[in-house]
Each structure stands twice: as structure tokens, then as C-alpha cells.
């Protein structure tokens, strides 16, 4: 069953007086439970694609469906609700809130779901434990290493039990050893949870670990390769 369906997606940006197509008539379907890498050089349109898939941006033309639902007529708050429930984001620079400790950062998406704070704390602790971070739960992000911060961010992405994890260059700010750990974490997560994980990267070695590689160039898909693992 397809989780994501992009149908003739065009995204155009106005740069001064000039219009620039960042995504050009892009069609793509991603099955539920896939581990997908989207690769491409800088400016190829991969982050724009992630923003559209993550409901942070709307396409100029075409239709995007997540689990069969399209989002033409939804307002910003409806989109925020769907992002909160269906999508977990992992960013290159972690984007943890420096004012909150690790536990509070993981709890944050649950706070916007209006659930009991005790239950939220239990869930957050569960994911911190899975990430091997129970001992740093009370520490602020700036007290953690890059790898620990990224694992906190992954826990935050998973705490709402979303169907889709979007990771934008998740190892881009980490050293090679930590990058391997994080990548293995994604692979292991996928194996255990069968969640749909899309990793956006420019690193071919990371992409090689995924089940499907989609390569973008100048806003178009130039390679879409299923790989058997």
C-alpha cells in the first residue's frame, strides 16, 4: 500500500523577477514501510521535496497525498496537526530547543496533542531508553555530544508514533563514526518498527544502505532504484 503519492508536482519559486522551477513535474510513490534515500547535489530540489512531503510547504502544481489524503484545502493548523501525528522530523542540525532538557525536548510533540503530562513523560522516557539516553534525560542539549543530540531528535521524531520519519541530512553534522551509529540506528529502527523512513542525503554511502534510492537533479528524478536487502 502506498503511503506517499506525488502526482505531477511542480514547485516554483519567484527569485526577483524570475520564476524558477525547483521541482519539475515530479511523480513518485512510496510504499508504507520503505526505507528510502533521496540523494542529489545541492540545489537538486531534495529539501524542497522533503518540505512538501513533510507538509511544511505546498506544491505550486500537482497533488500530494499522504495515506490517500490530499491537503489542498487544509489550513496551517490542520497541517500542523497532521505533521504532529503522522510525521517525525530529524534535521541535520538536530534542532533541539536549548531551553529544554532532553526529556522535555522529546515530550514536546506530545504536549501539542493535549495528552496527560505523566503519560507524555512515560512515552518520552521509553524512547530515550531505546536510544540509550536515560542517563542524560535531564541534561540540556548543549551538554550532549552531537550523536546524543541527534538520538534525542530521533526519539522526539518517534515519540508520537508517526507513520513517516523524514530525516534531512541526519548525519551531516556528525563525524564518520557517529554517522555510522546514527545510520545503523535508522536501519535498526526500520527493521523493528517497519516505519516508512525517508533519508535525504548527498552521501552515496548512506544511500547504499537503503532499500530504495531516488536521485534528483535539477528538480527531476533521474534515478529510482529498488534494492534488495
Amino acid at each position, binding site marked *: 500500500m502506498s503511503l506517499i503519492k506525488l502526482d505531477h508536482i511542480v514547485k516554483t519559486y519567484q527569485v526577483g523577477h524570475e520564476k524558477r522551477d525547483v521541482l519539475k513535474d515530479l511523480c513518485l510513490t512510496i510504499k508504507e514501510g520503505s526505507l528510502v534515500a533521496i540523494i542529489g547535489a545541492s540545489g537538486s530540489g531534495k529539501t524542497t521535496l522533503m518540505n512538501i512531503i513533510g507538509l511544511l510547504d505546498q506544491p505550486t502544481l500537482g497533488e500530494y497525498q499522504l495515506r490517500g489524503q490530499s491537503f489542498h484545502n487544509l489550513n*496551517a493548523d490542520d497541517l*500542523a496537526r497532521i505533521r504532529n501525528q503522522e510525521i517525525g522530523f530529524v534535521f541535520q542540525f538536530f*534542532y533541539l*530547543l536549548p531551553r529544554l532538557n532532553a526529556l522535555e525536548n522529546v515530550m514536546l510533540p506530545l504536549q501539542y496533542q493535549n495528552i496527560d503530562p505523566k503519560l507524555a513523560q512515560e512515552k518520552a522516557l521509553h524512547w530515550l531508553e531505546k536510544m540509550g539516553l536515560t542517563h542524560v534525560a535531564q541534561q540540556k542539549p548543549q551538554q550532549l555530544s552531537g550523536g546524543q543530540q541527534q538520538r534525542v531528535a530521533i526519539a522526539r521524531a518517534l515519540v508520537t508514533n508517526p507513520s513517516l520519519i523524514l530525516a534531512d541530512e541526519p548525519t551531516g553534522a556528525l563525524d564518520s563514526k557517529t554517522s555510522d551509529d546514527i545510520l545503523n540506528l535508522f536501519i535498526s529502527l526500520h527493521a523493528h518498527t517497519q516505519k516508512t523512513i525517508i533519508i535525504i542525503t548527498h552521501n552515496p554511502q548512506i544511500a547504499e544502505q537503503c532499500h530504495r534510492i531516488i536521485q534528483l537533479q535539477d528538480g527531476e528524478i533521474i534515478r529510482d532504484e529498488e534494492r534488495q536487502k
Partner: protein
Amino acid sequence: MKWKFYWREALNNLWLSKLRSILAIIGILVGSAAVVTLVSIGEMAKYKALSEFKTLGMNLASLVVNQNMDFNAGIDLTRTLIPDYNYAQSMLTLATKVANIQEVAPVATLSLPAYYAGKKLEAPIIATTYSYQTLANLQIQEGRFLHRLDRNNYFCVVGSDIANQLKNNGSNSIIGKELQLGNAYFTVIGSIKPWIGNAFISNNVNGSVFISLAAAHNFAPNLYIDTTLLQLKPDSDPDQIETDVKNFLAAKFPGLEVTVKTGKQLIVSMTHQKNVFTWMLGLIGGIALLVGGIGIMNVMLVSVTERRREIGIRLAIGARRADIQIMFLCEAIILATIGGVTGIIISLFITRIVAEFLTWEFMFSGSAVLIGFFVSLFTGIFFGIYPAYQASKLNPIDVLRAE
């Protein structure tokens, strides 16, 4: 449940930006303290003035003859009666002719030079009757006030300031000293204790020399009765007395127009004036609060600018625009509440000190506290709305890309 989260987050955020929070709180604190202190001082001043007046002037009334002045033609004597000595004599019968009037004291102020031992005294001469003492509640320092039997005697009583001037020139007692008033010599028979004033009586009692109306008439025949003070019986109806007095005078002096002011009217007008005064003070405090509110807005706008990435992250992971607005509004409300309450507590001390300093009865106006608190709160909400709105309008992609 979500509100608990909002408040905890807001408190946490403010705690982590302590200096900025304190600056914003100081702005509101000064405004709130100014509103509450100034309104309380206004209330204390009103209470002080009214309580003095109520003890001295509740049963007083004053009567003044209206002059039909035509400035082109001068005083129209055919239409106007000069309130002279004869008029004063008629006024003295009011106590027997009109019900509920206890005492009557016609008052004329003479502009005659006064001398003591060859030195000029700057002292207006008040010609009146013995009843003036009761009406103005004068306390005697030495000797006595004018008496019913003093009518034609050239006796005088001096206010406390004049008494001091007489003492400076020599002996301790002033009884028996001679004052030259115009061309006549008067013997001092008493002095009055310092007089605290009475909104109903405009005479400068402490700086005046009092002589009897009859004696004044002897050497200054053209005296002019400025006003006639009346003391009404307790619980009498001032409006009824005003009507009765006017009827009495209309029968006696046809065409005479008089204005009667009663204590009741004066209290109403004083209360009105003092309320205006209190509101003026409150308004001044309100301006300070407005400045405090603008301070909150500035601090919150800086906070929004500094926390753009945080806002972007929150929006990306599922915060609604309302969540962001409420987060910043909660911070503004907390700042305003802390500032407002602290300002009220500080104003309590300031008002206390002012009351001590002015020897007024200490009063802390409940309405001022409520006004101070709610205006602070409103200011916080009002000036927090714009930064909160600005924050919620941010686009997560733009913010995260820029960061």
C-alpha cells in the same frame, strides 16, 4: 491540561531570560506603582479634605448678595442693594425668622491699614459678630473672642500669625496691646490658636484682626458685607432653608438676589473636584503604565526575533499558530502580573510613607489596587498580542532555512 504546559513553558522561558524579564517587569512595576500610589494619594487627599469639612462645615451655609454688574454702565444702584450695616442687622434676625438656623455671622472685610507700635501689619480686618467663633470653630489661645456685649467697644482679637508678630515686638502676652486700625485704636482682648482652615470659610483667620461689626460701622460706615455665615441645626434640610432664606430676603429687600451655598452642595462639588483630581493622578500613572506596556512589547518582540528558530521547530513538530500565540501571551501576562502585583506592594509602602509625611490618615484604596492590577494585566495582554501574532505568523521553512 494544555494550559499547565503553556504556563510552565512560559515561566521556564522567562526564567531563562532573567535580565530581559526583569527589565520588562520593572516597566510594568513602575506604571502599576504610579497608578496605585497616585490614585491612593488622591483618595487620601479627598478623604482628608472631606473629613475636615464634614467636622467643621456640614451644618454651615453661606449667603452672598449677587451684584448686577453692568460693566458699561457701572453698578446699577436702582437694581442692586449694597449689603451694608443695615443689611447686616436684618441678617442677624434670620435666626429668629427662619426655622432651623442656629447662628448668623455677617462678615465684612475692611481694607484699612493696621499698625502696631508704629509698624504696619499686613492684616485684613474682619468685622463680624461673636457667632463667628462658633461658626468657624475658632479655639482661643489667650484672652477671649468678641462677645455679644462688645458691640460698640473698640476691642479686637487677632489670628495666630498676627499674635506672633505682636509677641516678636516685646512681651509674651498680647492682651491689652493697642492696634491702630485706620484712624481708630483697638485694644487686643484675645488671640486665636492656629486655624487649620475650612473649605467653607475663605478668610485668612490666622493672618486677620477681628473686630465687632458695630464698632466697624462707627468708624467705617460704608462697610460691605461680603458674606453671611449661617449655622444650621443638625439634620435640617439645607434646600428648605435656602428657600426660606430667599423668601425672607425677597420680602425684606425686593429685587435682591442672593446665592446660598450649603455644606451639602459644597461636599458634592468638592467630591466631584477631588474625583477629577484622583482621575487625573490615575491618568498620569496610566501613562507610566503605557510606557511599561510598550516596554513589554519591545522585550517580547526581541524575544520573538531571538527565538525564531525555536518557533520554527515548534511549528514543524506540530504546534498550531494558536499554541505559539498563547505561549508568548502567557509570557506577557506573567510579566505584567508580576510587575503589577510588585508595583501594588511597592505603592503600599510609598503611600504609607506619604501619609506619614503629610500626617494624613493612611488609606489604601481597594479600587486603586483593582484598577492597578487589571490595568497592568490588560496592558500585558494588549502589548503582548502584537509580538505573539508576529511569532505565530512565521513560516517554519523560512525560519529553519535562515537559521
